[in-house]
């Protein structure tokens, strides 16, 4: 299998100018690699820096040091830590998806449209995108009566499942999952597990952060623990 992502000595330091130039180390000396189609799980205490790593990979955080080598379909080997913003935008649109714990949605966009957008960005036709989005909403047990409503008023679990549906409706090259099972009941977790396995079979590489260790053990190929700033394979 080919290497999909290699993180080399990743460092993120936040400098807080409003509080006397305070420096907060988000993560430091983080190195790991993941092959195509593998799922790498990261666990650790709250505040250990797990989300910081994920956000650096998605370039929501600009790394302070180190490299993130990614095998892009569009651009070939590329260092996400220093790549041009325009390339990052295209990679996000076409290759890398990110599931956060929070729903960020435009006003007046329905749940169905929210999921469809993910496919329309890839150039799918409206009818095909609609069909796939409906199947995915159904898979994640979002009641049909909610499909044409605005998700701002959804429950926490529904919002998370909607986020998952949007990210997992497409076959991303790399999928980043930040606590994908937080606030989900057992039945919903099962739907997430099923979809993760389908994506893996189809070659999607995944990196996920978990607190639910049982769930993580059932889906990941490699289990890393972040402790005192050190990332170790368990």
């Amino acid at each position, binding site marked *: 299998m080919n290497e999909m992502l290699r993180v080399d000595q990743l460092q993120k330091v936040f400098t807080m100018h*409003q509080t006397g130039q305070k420096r907060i180390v988000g993560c430091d000396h983080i190195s790991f690699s993941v092959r195509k189609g593998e799922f790498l799980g990261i666990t650790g205490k709250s505040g250990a820096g797990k989300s910081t790593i994920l956000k650096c990979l998605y370039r929501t955080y600009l790394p302070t040091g180190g490299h993130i080598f990614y095998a892009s379909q*569009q651009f070939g080997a590329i260092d996400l830590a220093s790549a041009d913003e325009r*390339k990052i935008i295209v990679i996000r649109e076409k290759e890398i998806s990110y599931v956060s714990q929070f729903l960020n949605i435009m*006003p*007046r966009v329905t749940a169905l449209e929210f999921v469809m957008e993910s496919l329309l960005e890839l150039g799918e036709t409206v009818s095909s995108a609609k069909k796939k989005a409906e199947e995915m909403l159904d898979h994640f047990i979002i009641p049909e009566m909610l499909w044409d409503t605005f998700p701002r008023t959804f429950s926490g679990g529904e919002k998370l499942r909607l986020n998952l549906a949007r990210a997992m409706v497409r076959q991303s090259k790399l999928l980043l999952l930040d606590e994908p099972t937080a606030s989900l009941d057992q039945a919903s977790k099962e739907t997430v597990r099923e979809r993760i396995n389908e994506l893996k079979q189809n070659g999607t590489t995944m990196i996920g952060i978990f607190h639910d260790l049982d769930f993580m053990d059932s889906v990941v190929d490699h289990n890393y623990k972040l402790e005192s700033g050190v990332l170790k394979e368990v």
Partner: protein
Amino acid sequence: MSDLTDRPILNVRDLNKRFGRGCVHCRKPEDLPGLSNRCPYCGSVWACIHVSFDLYEGEILGIVGESGSGKSTLVRSLYFDAPVTSGTGEIASFKEGKANIFTESAQQKRYIKNYLMGMVYQNPWLGLKMDFSSGGNIAEKLIAAGNFNVHQIRQRASKLLDHVEIPLTRMDEKPVHFSGGMQQRVQISKALANNPSILLLDEVTTGLDLSVQARVLDLIRRIQRESHTAMIVVSHDLGVIRMLSDRTIVMKQGRFVESGLTDQILEDPHHPYTQLLVQSLL
């Protein structure tokens, strides 16, 4: 967002805009003391200082900053409402991208405004002729671009107004009788009349109530998705920028202080002013 294109459709380099006559102490913006943009001797204000950026096809570029930071002056300069003091601007589809649009003749500037750019002002009174009907406002823009067929003009106006959810029964009404949100939507349809490749939006949701604001934001996003029009969205509202733009530039006292991916600017701001701005977000 469209696919990556190597060449920007608009590139601006070293744009400077001074209000006031200037004096021996402020011939150049770099002569100003400290980080101020106001000359202490003659009171001239440099609203834009060495502003450089690229705009690509199909992207929404956000410009954010406090009142008086120069963001509205920037888009007005791009739309030739305020003559620039110095600098260059090139549009890829105008003279093969080899001409400085700021030094072109008045006739060429009119061509750019009629065919290549659209502008939506914060104040609809600046963008609309209130004594014309809504359809008449769109017709004015179409006629300016050389379209004199009444039937075609009416058809195009109907289509545009329908697109921005203005009931066609109100096409012959004057926008002065419309609500603020409707006026903004008529303005947007007028700006889009000739399918410009660049749309400039200056604080288009400021002063609108939240439900109307949501409708306008939704409309802008829909237009961008359907037509791949490149847009520059100016706002002091980080929420609007977060919803709309792919990349964001932060302005303070006429200068660009930070730029980056919008989520990166909001979650990992580096410049002290950007950090202050983000921390002040409600």
